[in-house]
């Protein structure tokens, strides 16, 4: 069912495109040698270039270009051999040059495509329009002094990738799924840490509404959307705002709006008179950027296996469900853990243990997967013990709880506590005989037609075996003896 919002005049469809700013992982800034590390004391990572001192010139950081190309490859996108840095001109206190160096007409990366996984298991393709590199701005603080603004230029000049999607997104869920997948991809690639709290990944959301089948409506760009929650909330708010506006006979103005997470609303960022004319033109301080195909291919060779490829492999090779596979790929650590644990074992069973037992237990304990007391190899051994019928699934849960607590190997726990499953039919037969001998009344009742008492006998046998008897064998032999 396509997502719609019900207005007074019927159902409305949302059309959403996203512009995501992702800070490139690099030691130094896009055009200067100063550190790009987060968290330094104010104005400590600022070179003469970053502060736009007179006569200073930008020099392109090759590593940032490599990271942008790597990301482009990860988005299955076309890498442009020729791209151009341009100046985007506007005045602001945290923009020392009075312009931002960005790419405009000729970005480094062209069209690409990624898959998003929706909760109902559906997989949808979202088009990437482009990816370009640009400088980050500094930070202005207006609440530190009654009349002065404080400016921190640590971030000024850090390398960003702006990743622009096609308007293929149709719901808040798809928007968050898109952002999650994008974040997953850059993390796999090691090109951005995807940390939205620290601002190394930020989203601008373009939203318009229309009656299903109509032409695109007028869109608004929502800025300052800095968490997955905010993406969801701002889309719901903004879509309703536009629908109400249109249904009340108004029209949507194409404008830039700001998401206010406290008031939970969007509002215009600037009036029309303040609308910017950025006067883009090629930066004469920088030569056009040319990247050779050989270099691109060298980078391609170093790409890790990407989440969607892994997902498809898990479904095809291991027979996992799409859903399980998509949960496993959410984090690179999970994938590694799973593959270690599932090696030469029942992969589906391993996935179940990982997703249902381990992640739940870790969550309860407030631990991450890397901090898990149960290592991947150990979880795998536990699965093996179930597979070869050394222990039952029920006993395995007890063993697992013990592992979580002590970090011991499952085989040792089984050994120490004598939890080995009894599959020796002779031993089980002896136990059953004992139980039958001890409960003549119940045997008579069962034989008289009280079938339900079968469970009682199973329970008694299991109790005598201290839970170690193989339940299937118990069932089988017991049935023979009682019915025989």
């Amino acid at each position, binding site marked *: 069912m396509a997502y719609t919002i019900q207005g007074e005049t019927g159902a409305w469809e949302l059309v959403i495109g996203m512009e995501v700013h992702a800070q490139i992982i690099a030691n130094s800034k896009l055009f200067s040698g100063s550190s790009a590390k987060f968290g330094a004391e104010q104005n400590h990572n600022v070179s*003469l270039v970053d502060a736009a*001192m*007179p*006569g200073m010139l930008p020099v392109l950081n090759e590593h940032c270009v490599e990271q942008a190309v790597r990301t482009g490859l990860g988005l299955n996108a076309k890498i442009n051999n020729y791209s151009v840095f341009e100046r985007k001109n506007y*005045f602001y206190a945290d923009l020392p*040059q009075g312009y931002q160096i960005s790419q405009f007409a000729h970005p480094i990366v062209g069209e690409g495509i990624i898959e998003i996984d929706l909760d109902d298991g559906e997989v949808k393709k979202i088009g990437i329009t482009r990816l370009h590199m640009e400088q980050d701005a500094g930070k202005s603080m207006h609440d530190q002094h009654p009349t002065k603004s404080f400016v921190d230029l640590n971030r000024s000049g850090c390398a960003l990738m702006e990743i622009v999607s096609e308007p293929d997104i149709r719901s808040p869920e798809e928007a968050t799924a898109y952002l999650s997948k994008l974040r997953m991809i850059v993390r796999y690639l090691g090109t951005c840490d995807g940390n939205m709290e620290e601002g190394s990944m930020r989203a601008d959301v373009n939203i318009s509404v229309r009656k299903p089948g109509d032409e695109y409506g007028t869109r608004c760009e929502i800025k300052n959307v800095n968490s997955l929650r905010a993406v969801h909330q701002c889309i719901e708010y903004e879509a309703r705002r536009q629908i109400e506006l249109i249904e009340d006979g108004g029209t949507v103005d194409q404008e830039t709006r700001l998401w206010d997470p406290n008031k939970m609303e969007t509002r215009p960022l600037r009036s029309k008179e303040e609308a910017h004319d950025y*006067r*883009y033109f090629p930066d*004469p*301080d920088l030569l056009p950027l040319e990247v050779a195909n050989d270099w691109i291919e060298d980078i391609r060779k170093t790409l890790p296996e990407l989440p969607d490829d892994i997902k498809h492999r898990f479904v095809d090779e291991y027979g996992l469900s799409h859903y399980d596979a998509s949960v496993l790929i959410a984090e690179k650590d999970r994938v590694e853990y799973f593959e270690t644990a599932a090696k030469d074992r029942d992969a589906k069973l391993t996935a179940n243990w990982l997703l249902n037992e381990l992640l739940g237990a870790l969550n309860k304990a407030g631990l991450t997967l890397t901090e898990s007391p149960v290592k991947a190899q150990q979880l795998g051994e536990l699965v093996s013990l179930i597979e070869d019928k050394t222990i039952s699934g029920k006993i395995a849960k007890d063993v697992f709880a013990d592992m979580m607590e002590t970090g011991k190997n499952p085989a040792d726990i089984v050994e120490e506590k004598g939890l080995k499953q009894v599959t020796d039919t002779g031993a089980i037969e002896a136990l059953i005989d004992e139980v039958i001998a001890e409960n003549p009344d119940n045997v008579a009742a069962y034989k008289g037609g009280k079938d339900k008492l079968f469970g009682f006998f199973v329970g008694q046998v299991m109790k005598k075996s201290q839970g170690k008897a193989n339940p299937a064998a118990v069932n089988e032999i017991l049935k023979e003896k009682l019915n025989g």
Partner: protein
Amino acid sequence: MTDLTHLTITEALNGLENKDFTSVELTQAHIDAMADAKHLNAYVTETPERALEQAQQSDKRRSEGKAGILDGIPLAIKDLFCTDGVQTTASSHILEGFVPTYESTVSGNLLRDGAVMLGKTSLDEFAMGSSNTTSYFGDVINPWKNKNRPDANLVPGGSSGGSASAVAARIAMGATGTDTGGSIRQPASFCGITGIKPTYGRCSRWGVVAFASSLDQAGPMARTIEDCALMLKSMAGHDPKDSTSAPKDVPDFTAGLTDDIKGLRIGIPKEYRMEGMSEEIDKLWEQGIAWLKDAGAEIVDISLPHTKYALPAYYIIAPAEASSNLARYDGVRYGLRVCDDGDNLIDMYEKTRAEGFGDEVKRRIMIGTYVLSAGYYDAYYVKAQKIRRLIAQDFTNAYEQCDVILTPTAPSEAFAIGENEEDPLTMYLNDVYTVSINLAGLPGLSIPAGLSKNGLPLGLQLVGKSWDEATILKVGQHIEKAANFTALPAIRTQKAA
């Protein structure tokens, strides 16, 4: 002892090496001359103590046998080059009091080779002008006088007017200039000295206050070709801090100066014979052609068909880049800041920039902003860039027929201060012979070739192929010898009298 300030750099280096005098003596002679020539207003900032200190160190180096190729030579630095610890203003109020903590690559190269800095020379504000009358620190005066109007103070040309005036008045042995549309060559012509704008990318722009980044190029201004060659060798070279600086070896420019020019093809562009060209300039050009012919060069008529579009294209591209380059002067981090109680950020920007920039700078920022605006960009900026490519192609085609191009440097002799001011377009015409060369990124030099009827110097321009400064220097030296330009500006003849 003869007046040391009359020596060329080459002569002075010989004198220093022969222990005829010390760098301290040479520097002191220039400091004394600077005091006598204060009224020229050639310097924004004089640094005599620093100069003498540097001269002392130079003498010490020389005595230890460690002298560099310019060791002990007192030079002036255009106040567009950032100098570590010395105020750098670009002749603008908005940068008044700005003291860089860094040295531009070009001035740093000169210091590395032992040069002594006498001070920072004036220029048109942010290098925008052809008369040096737009400096916030006052007009610069040309040391030459029109013998038919001896009372009038003349402009030195611009934008490197302070450097040209200082070198002509013998208050610096040489100076750095920058040339965006003729700013080295036109003042060199007006002041009777030699100046070369190298190929774009030959000298680093790092640490030079930017006017129009795709056109700006530093170069030397001195009294002989040989001195220019010597200075250029020091100033030039690849700089990884400037992405447009070329990773090319710098030839030994002085070594090539002895070769003859027999058989060299000299191109004469017909489009430069413009309507209304003064007879005097035309005659000088013919004279130049004759000298080179006599030296065995072959004269070739060539065509540069897009010449007439050069000036309009230049006055779109240069202001466009300038409007963006000058955005950083916002009162936030350095330089002038005008902010009254209760002003917000926008108020502060407006007041600072209104007070900090002069009229010509404001005019160009507005032109530049306009031509880059949405709706005008294609009609102006994009079209101007297309013309720029056509002009460069003109030269490429012409160089299939010739090796060097000879033209006049400027359409007139030095004019009086205050003239040509009523209409900015008249002023812009000063660059008519020089801007194409910047648009094409080629090397060009101006060499004094004679005097006008009014007794004022006139220059000829030589334009070379990309990276071929060596050939224009060589041809320039032939003109230098033939012209035997020994006339002195009024300030020096009067003093001698």
